[in-house]
């Protein structure tokens, strides 16, 4: 009697009653996913705030060719972000969005090298994991360097003759030459928060690279940690795709 009861219970066993992974993902991977979901909410809130504040300012109404910076209306992003390192030495007057485009490609490529590191980890190929992790770290550092240049240029300011009022030069948290104060504040918050994610991503990638080189994962028998940091790194790329669209293109 007792035995049959146990057997019946075994048959009815729910996948959530323990002993198996109901989502076919380890605890760590699942928690990385839920962390990224919460992080996605944070970034969404920041970008939606940008939308709210932008739509609560008047838009520029005149023709794009005559555009001048003013405190009265929201600037056209391609008129603000039009510098490229060394372009004046080459005799180029303006290169709108080229630099952020380059940054986008750098992140996409570092995402591919990351996914190749994950693939190498699945094959237990330590040499390949080391190689691709190193390329990913290099891509992340290059992106951070680009962002440092972008910020420095934004803070120092562009041609003051582009200004309608001509009172401010450069940008800070409480004023900026490009448009309403909130424009620069949001630039610093959104790209800054994303840049901080890239920075911590590079650090985490380096830790995992180091652990791979000293053979931690070989001893453990699997390279799942590479997959988990890979998720984080792709998320950083994903956020940049949205920042690129909503901050620079629209």
């Amino acid at each position, binding site marked *: 009697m007792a035995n049959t009861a146990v057997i019946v219970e075994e048959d009815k066993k729910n996948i959530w009653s323990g002993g198996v992974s*109901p*989502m*076919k*993902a380890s605890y760590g991977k*699942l928690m990385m*996913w*839920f962390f*990224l*979901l919460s992080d*996605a*909410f944070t970034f*969404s*809130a920041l970008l*939606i705030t940008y*939308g*709210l*504040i*932008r*739509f*609560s*300012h*008047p838009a520029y109404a005149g023709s*794009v060719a005559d555009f001048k910076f003013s405190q009265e209306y929201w600037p*056209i992003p*391609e008129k603000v972000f039009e510098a490229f390192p060394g372009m004046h030495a080459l005799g180029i007057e303006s290169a*709108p*969005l080229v630099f952020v*485009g380059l940054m*986008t*490609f750098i992140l*996409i*490529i570092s*995402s*591919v090298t*990351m*996914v*190749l590191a994950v*693939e190498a980890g*699945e*094959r*237990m*190929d*330590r040499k*390949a994991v080391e190689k691709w992790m190193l390329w990913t770290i290099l891509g992340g550092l290059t992106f951070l360097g680009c962002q440092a240049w972008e910020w420095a240029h934004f803070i120092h300011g562009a041609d003051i003759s582009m200004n309608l009022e001509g009172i401010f030069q450069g940008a800070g948290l409480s004023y900026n030459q490009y448009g309403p104060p909130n424009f620069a504040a949001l630039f610093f918050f959104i790209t800054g928060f994303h840049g901080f994610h890239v920075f911590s991503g590079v650090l985490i990638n380096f830790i995992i690279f180091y652990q791979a080189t000293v*053979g931690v994962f*070989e*001893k453990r*028998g699997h390279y799942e940690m590479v997959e988990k940091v*890979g*998720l984080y790194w*792709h*998320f950083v*790329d*994903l956020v940049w*795709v*949205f920042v*690129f*669209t909503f901050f620079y*293109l*629209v």
Partner: protein
Amino acid sequence: MEQRTPQVEVQPVNKAKVKNFIKVMLYLAVITLIEFGIAFTVPHEHKWVRIIVFIVLTIVKAYYIVAEFMHLGHEKKSLKMSIVLPMLFVVFFIFIMIYQGGAILEALY
């Protein structure tokens, strides 16, 4: 302490997988280039056309990153849904906040 070299068997490269990643990378690069093209060919007067096209292309890019690079497209359905469905809150939030922004503009100017 016992010193022992683990016997690790390195498997050959999964060529189909790598090819798929390169394909996704090319998609992402091409879509970004299309976005550039639109930014400089479609005039700013067509503001909403630009915004809608940019949003659609961004969602396509996001789909490829999440489904292929982050491998979510190949996970179990329960995991997919746990991640994708909560994002509906964000969609709701976008609409109320953009509406609110317009209302603030009207109140101020």
